[in-house]
């Protein structure tokens, strides 16, 4: 067998093999298309759907009854509540009963978990803001729902008993200063009595 005849036979064989491979290739291509379509249905479509939801998120409103925001150590530092489900205030780790009216609130806590103050909007109306020392409220600001009564109060819970109160009631404005438990200024009215 000469080289040219051998080459011709080999070429024919190779051409035949190439044709077979082309048929196989087309078959695999069809199958892969089907696979890709199935993948698209199973994976891509949900992803696209989720993405489109994510893209649309800023236009949506998160509706919850409450949110607790914690610091890096897991201590709750901010508490948002949409109703009376306000937690009992903890001081030195112990929870006490929360007294007074309840409602929507924003409360703030220190790094040890003790309540340090917040805003409260009672269901019966009005608004109040409190700021606490280590274990008690020392500043309160409140406004009644009637629009005619409001007050500002500073008072010590440690050291000497001092207090400064300023308010407006339907009867008019008033100012009261208490030094060491004794009323030193009261307007309108007298001064010098022992503070209740």
């Amino acid at each position, binding site marked *: 067998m000469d080289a040219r005849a051998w080459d011709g036979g080999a070429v024919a064989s190779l051409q035949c093999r190439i044709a077979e491979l082309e048929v196989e290739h087309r078959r695999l291509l069809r199958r892969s298309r089907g696979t890709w379509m199935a993948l698209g249905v199973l994976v891509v479509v949900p992803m696209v759907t989720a993405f489109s939801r994510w893209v649309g998120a800023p236009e949506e409103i998160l509706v919850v009854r409450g949110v607790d925001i914690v610091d890096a150590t897991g201590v709750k530092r901010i508490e948002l509540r949409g109703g009376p489900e306000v937690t009992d205030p903890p*001081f*030195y*780790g*112990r*929870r*006490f*009963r929360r007294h007074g009216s309840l409602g929507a609130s924003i409360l703030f806590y220190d*790094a*040890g*978990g*003790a309540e340090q103050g917040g805003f409260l909007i009672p269901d019966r109306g009005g608004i109040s803001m409190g700021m606490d020392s*280590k*274990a*008690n409220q020392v500043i309160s600001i409140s406004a009644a729902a009637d629009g005619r009564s409001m007050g500002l109060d500073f008072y*010590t*819970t*440690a*050291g000497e*008993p001092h207090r400064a109160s300023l308010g407006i009631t339907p009867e008019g404005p008033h100012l009261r200063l208490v030094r060491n438990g004794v009323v030193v200024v009261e307007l309108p009215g007298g001064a010098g009595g022992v503070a209740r």
Partner: protein
Amino acid sequence: VRQRPGRRRAAFRTAGRAGALGLALGVVAAAAVGDSVAAQAELGMIAQLSNTRTQRANRATQEQETAQEPLVATAGGGPMTSVAFAPDGRSVASSSLDGNVYLWDASTGERVRVLGGHTDEVYAVAFSFDGRWLASAGYDGQVLLWDASSGRRVRDWRVDPWPLSVVFSPDGRHLLTGGVDGRLRMLPLNGGAVRTLRAEQRSALALAYSPGGDRIAESWSAVIVRDAGTGTVVDTLAGHRFLIFSMAFTPDGTRLVTGSADATIRIWDLATGAAVERIETRLPLPFLAVSSDGRWLAAGGADYKVHLWEMDAPGTEGELIGTHDRDVTGLAFSPDDRRLASSSLDGGVKIWAILP
């Protein structure tokens, strides 16, 4: 013969001086190095550098003399709310906001046992006087009785809404709890009905039995003293401006020491009902303990520190024992008064040497 606090300070100061000597040598060495550098610098700069070094050395020496490292510091567990020494002095129990009660080896600080059973924050823990039982109370309204040696839960009671404090009666017959509703409840250990005492204040924050067991003291913003048998009020100790978080009778039962969030510690004469001593602190130190011999008073709270006073001279500035990283929430002397355990919201229980 027990050493007086003055001797205690002297003993610790000796150790402090050794440290101070090391520091002083360090300062000299540093100054020598500094001199070679300073030869090329202006004299004013040298003086300033030297002065700063001296101040630093002085501060370090002062801190070393006043504070100490704990003998034992535990690790693991949530923020701690109370601590109690076992009567045999070998273990310490603490309650935690993570809902567990922890038992620690008082010598090594190793966690011996975790007692789970509460479903919420635990506020108080107490050993019975014979050391057999351990009681705990918490925000879930449960009062649990444990076998202190095995950790087995023996009994449980439901207190509505929830208890803030729990103590054993000296005769070991019942547990006494102070409720957030102000009511006291006597829980019989050997069966029988729970006896409830009428609330006298908004809450019963702290409880203490007199050494003879004939008086009960309960606190909120005032202290109510009751006859332990009848529950009738025999005295009211008013004067604190805010909540009283802890109390302790002196061993002779004649005085009561109270720690309040109004930043004062007061010592009351129970015969007259008057406060005979008043310690004012910069920040509230409302958690306290009195040693079993009545000589020492330890207190801690918002400044994260543990302080010690001599009961005979409470007006003097207290001695700094050590520090935590968060509020101190409980203190307990060991039965021999040589050690002091402190619990803190930092999640730790530390045991300090009171006598070297």
